[in-house]
């Protein structure tokens, strides 16, 4: 860092004299350092420079900003800067009633919003001690697993795109497109479904959804095997991801990670089995794990999970009971004062909510536990010493969704 600052003409307006480093190669801390860590980070050693990745960058998956301290191509240190997508969802949820919370939590996990919108629903049902009709439960599982597959298909494409491959992203989108079309037939929406309701779901299965689903199920296994073959046998892809960003289970557990990044380290933690909810105890499926903990293991785990989800969908379609899809509830829903923690296994890990009710029709506190936020924390320790190109692969393999991280 240059110590003596002199008055130079601003690059934005030559009329103005500013006290700032004249070249981009000087360090420009954003503000006066707020923490010790920040003060240490914004000190440059000889030969190092800062590279500002984001918030507008092609491969940060939204508006994540990562300030990197690099020495040539090697990354010395990273400082992720969050908050560019902060909307105050938790607070907004406290100002609407419980039903509004469904559409407010919807965009949190925008690649798989069937999961985030289930949070207020599950919390409210737990607080009310409400019995959901069995058919509604089965439809929910069906919708969740379909959405999980669409999200995982996108993950595989994103990972390849961040490694420079152009084709897999479109294969992933072709798969996602079919699922999204059928969910649109079910819910009326392609992205933010707003389908879950306290006490059931909004609308029964319809003919168009079922015909699309049957059509897609007949070739889904073949599709996913084709995509896996395209990438598993690609020498460059395997060499890029194998041994990259290796997490051990202590670190992963210590950071509070969950979902595929945690299971890739060998911890078989899945909320569907660990703390069962809905009708998952009645269904047969495995929790695939890997012991390597690297990006390749995370990628393989996603492929395995898609296969397990297909298995679940198959069972759900065979076991689907008849009956209503909504429980009988009063129109103005007052929830007795209590507190509850509801968790759900989203494609990115444990999506949880700690909800407190004060007896009114609004949540008193609505604290959201987002798995992407915890998974993203691993970027710092994983990217040190890696080359610049690998931070993208690491970030993509952790699969963060900024909507949930910034809330």
């Amino acid at each position, binding site marked *: 860092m240059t110590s003596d600052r002199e008055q130079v003409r601003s690059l934005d307006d030559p009329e103005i004299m500013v006290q700032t480093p004249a070249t981009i190669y000087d360090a420009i801390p954003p503000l006066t350092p707020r923490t010790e860590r920040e003060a240490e980070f914004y000190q440059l050693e000889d030969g190092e420079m800062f590279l500002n990745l984001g918030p507008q960058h*092609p491969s940060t998956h939204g508006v994540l900003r990562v300030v990197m301290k690099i020495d040539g191509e090697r990354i010395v240190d990273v400082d992720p800067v969050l908050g560019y997508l902060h909307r105050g969802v938790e607070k907004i949820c406290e100002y609407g009633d419980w039903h509004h919370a469904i559409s407010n939590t919807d965009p949190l996990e925008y690649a798989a919003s069937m999961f985030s919108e289930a949070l207020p629903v599950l919390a409210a049902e737990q607080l009310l001690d409400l019995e959901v009709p069995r058919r509604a439960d089965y439809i929910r599982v069906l919708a969740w697993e379909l959405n999980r597959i669409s999200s995982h298909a996108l993950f595989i494409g994103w990972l390849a795109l961040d490694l420079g491959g*152009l084709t897999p992203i479109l294969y992933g989108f072709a798969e996602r497109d079919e699922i999204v079309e059928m969910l649109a037939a079910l819910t009326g929406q392609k992205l933010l479904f707003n389908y879950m309701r306290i006490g059931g779901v909004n609308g029964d299965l319809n003919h168009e959804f079922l015909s699309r689903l049957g059509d897609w199920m007949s070739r889904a296994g073949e599709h996913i095997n084709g995509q896996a073959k395209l990438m598993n046998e690609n020498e460059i892809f395997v060499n890029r991801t194998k041994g990259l960003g290796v997490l051990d289970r202590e670190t992963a557990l210590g950071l509070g990670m969950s979902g595929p990044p945690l299971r890739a380290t060998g911890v078989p933690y899945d909320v569907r089995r660990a703390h069962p909810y809905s009708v998952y105890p009645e269904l047969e499926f495995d929790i695939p794990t890997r012991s390597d903990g690297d990006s390749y293991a995370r990628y393989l785990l996603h492929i395995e999970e898609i296969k397990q989800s297909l298995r679940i969908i198959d069972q759900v379609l065979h076991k689907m009971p008849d009956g209503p899809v909504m429980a009988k509830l009063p129109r103005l829903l007052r929830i007795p004062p209590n507190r509850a923690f509801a968790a759900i296994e989203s494609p990115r890990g444990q999506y949880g909510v700690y909800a407190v009710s004060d007896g009114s029709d609004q949540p008193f506190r609505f604290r959201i536990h987002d798995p992407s936020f915890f998974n993203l924390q691993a970027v710092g320790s994983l990217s040190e010493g890696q080359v610049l190109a690998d931070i993208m692969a690491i970030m993509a393999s952790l699969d963060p969704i900024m909507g949930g991280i910034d809330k």
Partner: protein
Amino acid sequence: MTAASNSQAGLSTAGKIILPLIAIIVVVSVAGTILWVTGVGVSLAEWTLDTGKANIEILRFVAAATGVLLFTIPAAFVIIYMELKIIAQMNLRVGPDRTGPWGALASLMAGLKVLSKEDYTPRGVDVPVFTLAPAVTFLASVLTLLVIPFAPGMIGYEMELGLIYFFAAGSLGVIGLMMAGWSSFNKYSLLGGLRAAAAVISYELPLILGTFGVVLLAGTLNLGQIVENQAGGIWNWYAWQQPLALGIFFIAATAEAGRTPFDYTEADSELVAGFATEYSGMRFGFFFFAEYVNVFILSALTVTLFLGGYHGILDVDPFLSAIGVETPVELSNLDPGSLGPWLLAIPFLVPPILTLAIAALLWMIKTGWGFIKSLLVGFLLANLLVGAIVSIWALLSFEALMGIVWFMGKSFALVGLFVMMRGAYPRVRIDQMMNFAWKWLMPAALLNIFVTAGAIIIVTEYLS
């Protein structure tokens, strides 16, 4: 500008064309008269002719350089269109389909768009270096085309050290990339430019060493001579004698052109657009074109060195002479004057008779067709027939035309391979890439040279 457009506002389209033409003709004739009367024009013309005669080599060089410069633009358009369409097929997309038949004008429109965009120079850049960088990159790659033999006798400038010139001129391109990266006042550009420099140093060596086997076999660095050595069918190509060199050369050429899987210089998921991040308008267009021209040039060099250049897969001359056709068909064999007044029949009688004959045939076969429709289709088919006959005659008569068809066909097939690789592979990490260049390609290239040299010594010294 506004006055000119106001004065033209009331004119019809034809008037808008004719009025300026009249003005230009008047100005040109007045100037010509003055030059002629004063005698300046005559001496100027004499001086031009004399200088031209004295410096015929320089004139030829300038003409050839202009020729390759003009050739590269449509070639780049074709490659860009190929890239859009082939990758679209691989991605299960349709690709461009709006402008032109099957979207064939999409790349032309992209070129026009680039021309019409603002040529923006950001504050803080090193202006002269920033401005010159695209020209350096583009010219360096275009000038290498000078020594590529497109067809027998169709070579921009026949040099004894053609291959050396090719690599010397081609390596200048990276200076342009480094200039762009350094002057752009952007860290992403800087990293892109430095990556380009690092990669060129690593991959230039196996690229050049890979060609040494061919040079040893051919005994010359003259590219025209290397192609001539491969005449006489597919089994005479150097690809069979130098398969390892072909592999090394192709991989190194991919890196040299900055194509996937070695497109680290403008890795869009890492460096936004690499060295070209701060460029816009036609300056960006030059980088864009230079990339595609580079792809074509390296394909052309691969074809020239390993795949027989402008020679066909089969040597057709023996077959043609067996059935009584001598190639090239001598133009002097056909004397139109000997036809006498029947010469008039060729332009005036043959087309209508041919049209009518085909139309009548169509009218009889196709029951649903009216007379006018048959006539129109007949006219079209007659023209196509005549065109085909003329084309075949031209192909047989002019060796150069046949050569260029083969050369372009082979080069664009290789370009298609480059494009398909972009659709199929992710990017190689920079350290893996360096490892590959120094630990695998370099030793393989050296091994190839030793084996080739040893084989030549054994064949020439002991077996003959």
